[in-house]
């Protein structure tokens, strides 16, 4: 795991018990999410707390992937693109499609759910904070492919590494997350 020091913005990686500093991150660019570190919420019958985040930047703007820790210490991701939310978890599935095969409109069936590619995004890290369940350092521009089903299922194919990673979950509404400890906005 890795964490970002609150005070000096150092990125610290924990490989065993020792933490070693691997770099320093810049201040996060401007973004408008109401969520912050330690925001709490609900997903299904579980509580979660926001432990970290990755801010991604792509040609159209930015979005957040909030690292959440659910009851029982399960790691998940709360995706927040202009207040459109989805919660997903890493899934191990053999023979994921190579990036070029997952064209817009292509469908794939995983866990008996048919997903269709709705966006292909080339993005890079614009900032990180808090704790992340993996080491993100020195990653460049990578492709993310979002898929949806006709039943609110949500999936992301992440081509950061040589073998694609798959995250599967559900699109969620702000209201059903029942979030606490949100940021406040002038005039609202």
């Amino acid at each position, binding site marked *: 795991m890795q964490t970002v020091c609150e005070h000096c913005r150092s990125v610290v990686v924990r490989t065993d018990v020792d933490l070693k500093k691997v770099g320093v991150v810049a201040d996060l660019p401007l973004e*408008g999410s*109401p969520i912050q570190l330690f925001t709490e919420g609900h997903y299904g019958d579980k509580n979660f707390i926001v432990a970290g985040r990755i801010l991604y930047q792509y040609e159209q703007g930015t979005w957040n992937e909030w690292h959440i820790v659910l009851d029982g210490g399960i790691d998940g991701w709360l995706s927040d693109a202009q207040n459109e939310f989805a919660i997903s978890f890493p899934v191990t599935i053999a023979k994921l499609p190579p990036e070029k095969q997952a064209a*817009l409109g292509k469908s794939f069936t995983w866990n008996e759910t048919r997903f269709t590619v*709705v*966006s*292909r995004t080339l993005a890079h890290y614009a900032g990180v904070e808090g704790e992340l369940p993996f080491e993100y350092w020195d990653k460049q521009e990578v492709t993310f492919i979002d898929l949806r089903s*006709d039943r609110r299922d949500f999936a992301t194919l992440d081509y950061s590494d040589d073998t694609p990673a798959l995250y599967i979950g559900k*699109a969620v509404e702000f209201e059903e997350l029942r979030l606490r400890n949100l940021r406040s*906005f002038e005039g*609202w």
Partner: protein
Amino acid sequence: MADKRPTISVRSVNCPNCGAATTVRTFGHAVNVVCMSCRSILDAKDPGVTILQKYRKAVPQEPLIPLGTRGTLPGETIQREVVGFQVRQITVDDVDYQWREYLLFNPYHGFRYLTEYAGHWNIVSTVRSLPDGDHMPANSGTRGFDNELFRHFQTATATTVFVLGEFPWQVRVGDQVTAVDYVAPPRMLSAEVTADKEVTWSLGQYTTGDEIWKGLGLPGSAPNAEGVFADQPSPYATVTRRMWRNAAWLLAVATLLWIFHLGSARSRQVFTQTFRYDARQIQDASLVTPIFEIDGGPSAVRVETQTDLDNQWMGVGYALVNDDTGQSFEFAREVSFYAGVEDGESWTEGSRSDVVTLPTIPPGHYFLRIEPEGERIGKPVDYRVNVIEDVATSLWYVVTVILVMIPPIVTSIRAGGFESRRWAESDHGNAGSSDDNADNDDGAESDDD
């Protein structure tokens, strides 16, 4: 280790082109912001602020709802603020159609869109699920969504022609997407396809300008809606259904009464007699029958005239006279029968007998006055007159059926006219422009595995 960050404050950017300050309303969401003074598109994320696109349209378009307006959209409980405005355009058969889109924002509940065309409004939100079955839009057919079937209305290339305010994505005048609309009034299911990159489905809810004006607390009144919009609910839809339902009930009742009437009619013969009429006789052939009784309640009475005419005609003037009251029902009948052989084929014309039903005759003692007339050639005619009381009649039933059916039929025709006007604006209207859109379908093709 509580992370209580300070309230995020409202900021403004200074335009490098004209120097004017423009307030940013969506905090860190703003990717682009349009200078309120010179209308240049600025990079809201850049601390130094750069000009991304200079204003290049000669005629500015003022939003009907000013930026900064805050209020509650119909169907919602939270407030949103109008932060962005864009005009988009499609071209069909060389005609440009422009509509306006307002972007509304709440820092917690996110963005909603409000679209307006010719005074017709839709509240639009992106959806979390794809349509059932085929997940991608096409140029025809239907899509199921949220337990409803949406019919394809239009596929077109939408071009951004004017922007104002701020947007959480990159926006430029000249941006193009493929826009596909499916309708199930009062809702519209739309897909916007950016070639090879993204398909975004959204759901629009048709809303009147008055509701918008009320919700957002706008002064004055909303502009009147013109024409019929794609997902405008038909004013006839529920009325037509209700009228057909009522008509069905009335017809069922009328039919039961009719069947009961058919079964209960006694058809009792109260008078029968045969007379002979010889037209060659000079003297008056008028005659008066003996008195007979019509009993029961007022009922239909049938008068039959049965003759042995042979290539001749006769007329009979009848008067059914109530001997008690003197009330008289007069009616004239004409009977003719001709037959022969022509070119080896026999033919006949007319009939030897005649039947007439008098709808409502009160009970009482009656006699018939009969005045026959006919040709002064041919043989004498024997004719029998039968009077039958309490016969079944169906005319009232036929009239009732027609009267009951007229209102729903008229309303159905009007409803059909409304739907014709709706679909005339689509790719599938009579004006027929579906072929012209065949080359607009970049990225909108269904491409399922």
